[in-house]
């Protein structure tokens, strides 16, 4: 038994190493090729980027940008997700509301939201709220759509059964509709994470006084590729952290689902 335990721990570590390998290979090739195959001014190089990251954090120059973007992301995401879940749920439960609003929502769904960025700058100014609005809008549609489909796909027989067992409308929401739609809600919220980043960064590109998007634009106009990549690396870290959080939440909320491999879930 201890042997197999040690074996599984070893294979777990091996799995992590194998997963990191492509990234390491990429970084090594990048480092080597920069200045040899491609000019450093185009692609910078990993050590330069690492140094640039160290610089901007050590000097503290990045913090105002970081703080602004983080605020915009959190606000935009929270507002978009909350309105998306509520609207999706209400429309899925009320055929009348759905028949009125569905065509409008589907029409808006088709508009490239990024095209609204200049409009939002006019409406909400060049500060925080135009970015929040853009991110919220992008998050809203994804979350709304998933929740709407999720709640509508709840098995009618299960709903009937639960009503016979004594459920009122409110109890149905709590015991049937919300948990049954949870996988869809979580999927929508997960998919929305990168979109909230797109919304905020595009907003900042368009017009802003502070933020990571502005930092990237300025680095690019100063011919500072290391700065551009440093900004991108911070955004990447944001998305990875948010995804990890979503995975945790997903495992917690959806532990009732059969795991796809048929074994107990494996901590990654």
């Amino acid at each position, binding site marked *: 038994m201890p042997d197999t335990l040690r074996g599984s721990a070893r294979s777990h570590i091996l799995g992590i190493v194998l997963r990191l390998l492509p990234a390491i290979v990429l970084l090594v090739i990048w480092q080597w090729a920069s200045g040899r195959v491609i000019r450093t001014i185009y692609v910078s190089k990993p050590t330069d980027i690492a140094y640039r990251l160290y610089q901007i954090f050590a000097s503290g120059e990045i913090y105002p940008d970081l703080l602004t973007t983080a605020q915009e992301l959190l606000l935009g995401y929270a507002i978009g997700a909350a309105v998306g879940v509520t609207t999706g749920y209400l429309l899925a439960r009320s055929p009348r509301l759905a028949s009125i609003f569905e065509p409008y929502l589907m029409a808006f769904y088709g508009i490239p939201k990024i095209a609204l960025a200049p409009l939002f700058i006019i409406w909400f100014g060049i500060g925080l709220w135009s970015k929040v609005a853009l991110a919220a809008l992008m998050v809203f549609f994804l979350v709304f759509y998933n929740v709407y489909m999720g709640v509508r796909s709840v*098995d009618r*027989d*299960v709903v*009937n*059964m*639960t*009503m*016979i*067992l*004594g*459920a*009122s*409308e*409110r*109890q149905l929401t709590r*015991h*049937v509709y919300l*948990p*049954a739609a*949870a996988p869809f809600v979580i999927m929508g919220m997960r998919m929305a994470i990168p979109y909230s980043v797109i919304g905020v960064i595009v907003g900042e590109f368009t017009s802003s006084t502070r933020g990571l998007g502005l930092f990237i634009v300025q680095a690019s106009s100063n011919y500072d590729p290391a700065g551009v990549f440093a900004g991108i690396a911070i955004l990447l870290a944001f998305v990875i952290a948010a995804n990890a959080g979503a995975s945790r939440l997903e495992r917690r909320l959806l532990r*009732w*689902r*059969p795991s796809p491999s048929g074994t107990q879930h494996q901590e990654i």
Partner: protein
Amino acid sequence: MRVDETNVVADAGERHDTRAPALEFDRVVQDFRLPSGKGSRRVLDTISFAVRRGQFTAIVGPSGCGKSTLLHMAAGLLAPTSGAVRQDGVAITSVNRAIGFVPQQAQLLAWKTLRENVELPLLLRQVPRDERAERVREVLVAAGLAGFEDHYPHQLSGGMQKRASIARTLVYRPATILMDEPFGSLDAQTRMVMQDDLQSLWSRYSATIVFVTHDLTEAVILADNIVLLGSQPTRLKANVAIELARPRNVFQPFHTNRFAEFYDRVWAIFQSELARPAAETVAANADA
């Protein structure tokens, strides 16, 4: 859907006429709209029968004859096109929260553990916590599910899910329980064990049971009387009393005294239906 339905049903229960049958189908007609949208098809044609309190009634008929439809009407999930279904003398007009319903598929809530699933009807009925725990424990032991309380439905076998579905119904002690081919999807052995368990649970909880099945042996060995339906448009063919002593041996029905006699009597009526393909008797009814 109104929130006050529970109260309506509860009130109806208070006023009920104790001399009325537990469940009564009174000239029930059910038409289903054709998939084309034009016209409708008569599924159930003027069905009348009554289920006495405490009795085990089996409804038997060829597949597609509308057996389940009868139960759905009794559960208040479907209104009859004409006629009425009455419980304790009161017509059922909305979702019937005063009965128990055991569906074909177990239909446990996948996101709740076995314990939470069985506890749910008590929670919905605002039974105090201590009493909930006690009743859930008791019914899980009676249903042979002790030790699996924290399993999720997907971790239980088909037979155990079925037991859980029955336990979830028994736990709130409905006076009448509707069962829609509950053992249809089980293998032969599990099925016999479940039939035996159902028989003992029934005598223990003394409910009125309406049990839909297409299996004659199952119907004869379990029921006090069998309602036989023809093929569509379905009419009542016979209501046969099965006067076999209890408890009955479900594992060896043919060793049960007089089993063959009752089986043959039911079979003689049922036989004529099997020879007739249902399709020939389907009549489109364009005026509805």
